[in-house]
């Protein structure tokens, strides 16, 4: 009896020195609510309706593997295009359509297209949010004279601060596509 008690006591004390929980049993997949893994720019030539698309793809998000695709935008000189961007989060199942979410929350998003040099392209917004500010989910891009440079595509997230300028908020997308006009 006494011996039993001693053993129980020893066991009890031993239990105080250990814990049994395996953090591996409860491991959860990363969940980044703002992740964007692909940006696709669709240029539709005004008149002919010819469609060309250029994309940036990083399916596993920041880090891990390097981006799998980062196209050079190739446009015809002195030609007008309708530019529609598309954003996806392909890390989720089902694939998360970020474009739809931007449309839904148009009053806090702004797309900005900045060519460098500026002579390569001129952009005109073709849409407006409920407050009358541009969005940039559709617009006209007119290629200028032949040359090479870059086109910076920015998705500005401007909650409660959107005023039609680029300044408020922060970047959700900031990509410098190489741009070739010929």
């Amino acid at each position: 009896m006494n011996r039993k008690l001693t053993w129980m006591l020893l066991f009890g004390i031993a239990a105080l020195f250990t814990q049994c929980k395996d953090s591996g049993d409860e491991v959860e997949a990363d969940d980044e609510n703002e992740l964007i893994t692909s940006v696709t720019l669709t240029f539709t030539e005004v008149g002919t309706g010819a469609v060309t698309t250029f994309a940036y793809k990083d399916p596993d998000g920041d880090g891990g593997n390097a981006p799998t695709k980062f196209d050079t935008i190739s446009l015809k000189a002195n030609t007008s295009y309708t530019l529609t961007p598309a954003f996806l989060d392909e890390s989720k199942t089902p694939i998360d359509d970020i474009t739809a979410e931007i449309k839904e929350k148009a009053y806090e998003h702004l797309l900005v297209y900045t060519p460098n040099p500026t002579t390569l392209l001129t952009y005109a917004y073709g849409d407006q949010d409920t407050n009358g500010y541009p969005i940039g989910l559709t617009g006209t891009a007119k290629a200028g004279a032949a040359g090479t440079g870059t086109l910076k595509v920015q998705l500005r997230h401007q909650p409660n601060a959107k005023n039609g300028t680029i300044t408020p908020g922060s970047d959700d997308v900031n990509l410098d596509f190489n741009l070739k006009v010929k």
Partner: protein
Amino acid sequence: MKKYFYICLIILVSSLSHGQNSSCTCFIKGVIRDLHSGQPIAGATILLTGTTNGVFTDEKGKYEIRNLCPGIYQLEARIVGYSTYKQTIDLIISHEENFTLLEQEVHLKDVEITAQRTDAPASQPLTTLSGNDLEQTRGQTLGESLKGISGVTSMQTGSSISKPVIHGLHSNRVLIMNNGVRQEGQQWGSEHAPEIDPFVATRLSVIKGAAGVRYGSDAIGGVILVEPEELPFNKTLSGEVNLVGFTNGRQGVSSSTLQGGIKGLPGFGWRAQGTIKQGGNIRTPNYFLDNTGISEKNFSLGAGYRNKGFGIDLFYSRFDTKIGIFSGSHIGSITDLLNVINNGEPFVKSGFSYTIGRPNQNVTHDLLKAETHYNFQNGNRLQWTIAQQVNHRNEYDLHIPRNDSIAALNHPELTFKLNTLTNDVTWDHKPIAGKIAGQIGVSTLYQYNLMTGRPLIPNFNQFNIGVFWIERYVKNDWEFEAGLRYDYRTLSTHRIVSRQKISNHFDFHNGSGTIGATRNFTGNLSARLNAGTAWRAPNVSELFSDGVHHGAAAFEKGDSTLHPEKAFNSIASIKYASEKLTIEIGGYFNYIKDFIYLKPQPQPILTVRGAFPYFKYTQTDASFKGIDISAAWQFVKNFSATSKLSYLKAYDTRNDNYLVMIPANRWDNQLKYEIPLLANLHNVFFSVGNLWVARQKRVPPKSDFMPPPAAYSLWNIQAGGTIHLSAKQQLEIGVSIQNLFNTVYRDYMNRFRYYSDDIGRNASLRLKWKFGA
């Protein structure tokens, strides 16, 4: 692991004249006893500073110093395992008529001395903030409170998140012992402040330099001890109420304590304490910072029992904070960051508000501790401390999910749940030959972390066991100390990569050692020398980080092949202390082999938010050399000047370069005027101070988005006093103004230096009502 233990030192002060002309026949004698066990303490050193006299207590705890001339002496009692106690003693030659009387009747003076038990290495510099110095920091965070100690600075994320930095090292390299328990939060993060309410403590101490042998691995930079007062065993009800108000942030802090013994139940003591803090947006000299409020609710409960040599203490504390993070500090890309830097001030404008919106941190930390000890009749002592800590950290990002139904749930974007169980068993052996005392101990730590949200660190399980042995030897004016420790740690991590669960396993083990000496020269001079080693295993963020750190605009990547870093620390100090002048000069050299740091990579890394500078956790060899000087001088009656200088040079010796995020040199000066009694006010003081912080010139070239901020100089004024309301009640009042001239400045160690200026003028009023014993 560490608890207070009181001893009672009874000194019989007496003077005798045998009718001889020689007046140097006074003597001091007494017994040193342990208050709880009642056992005499053998081998304690009794020194009279200013003389060559020094004796030891015998097996019965008795000591005697003879042939003393009348005069004022500083009696110093040094007991291994206890902090040094000092007392001024006035020896007066007796009159003729006293001759016939028994010495006890006339000259017996019972002086009760309570010395606080400490495990801090005796040969390492230990600076303590207590009493009035601590009172002046009330209402501030732990990191801010410690900034007054030379060699200690803070690393900040805005004004509300502050982490202590000792000799240039911080986060996982500084260990915090909260009430005897190793604090385990998510301390790897630069924006994760210690989850401790400083009102719990009556003493904040800093051990500078590697103290790995006693406190375990990771203590490369130093150890911070947060210690409450001993529970009021057998005492009557007492308490205090603190009220602090700050103009900046319109912050109010209230903290109360109630404590006492239990009538009719001898040996019991209890304490209850709680703190509430509420603050709003911080104001820099020119603008408010949006969403920088803070809300905190903490409480602690303690109870204990003492009976002869046996003692048990139970302690529970809860720390609950919600801290707003300045919304202008959220950036998406480097372009965003460069725009804010070029603008010179934040784009986000704000007025005053108490509302805490996104982004914010919501952290709770629970600590449950039981400590029990037994003092054996023969002088041995056994102590066991078991503690459970649960740390829950929720971080809410600025942006809610775009999907409305998910956004409505208002989930944190990051959640960490860290659970830690620690056990410490220490055995203090009885003094050998009255001269050697020592301690042997075993510490274990079991920990698991669960995290959800955006990718940052993996889940992990960690187990650590360490054994140590420290011995101290006292001989005449010398005190030697040596110790050894061995630690073994296993770490398992679990994460999901491309929908696959990947588990990794790591084993780390290492030995560490310490050796030190203290020499008390005749007079007021003493010197200390300590050499020690410590090591630190890489933490999970250093092993597995992989993503953009949005606060720093950097892409940080971990390396799972990192091995532990090892520190070789030597620290020497010399101290002169007289009644009017105290000077302490300390020098240190800390060499860290395989120092883990973020190394800039030549190629930036491309993300959907553009290219980010790419940093990889890499190992190098680093040296930290520095000097701390502090001096206090009472140059005229009632007037005193204090000066503290901290100099530090850190260098990457393998790559022949400087290191980033090293605190700049600083010089702190203060002039104080004290009046012991002014009308009804006791201990009245006025002081004016200046803090000068140099520009950090030693930075690697092109390592930063903006050059380190310019040097700055801040002025402050303080005043205070105490009103004795009755024999058992007193009211302490203090006022202060920090950044008196509303100086615009930025600090290199503040991670928000890119976004905004630092905090502007801040006036505060402190009231403390104390009642009872």
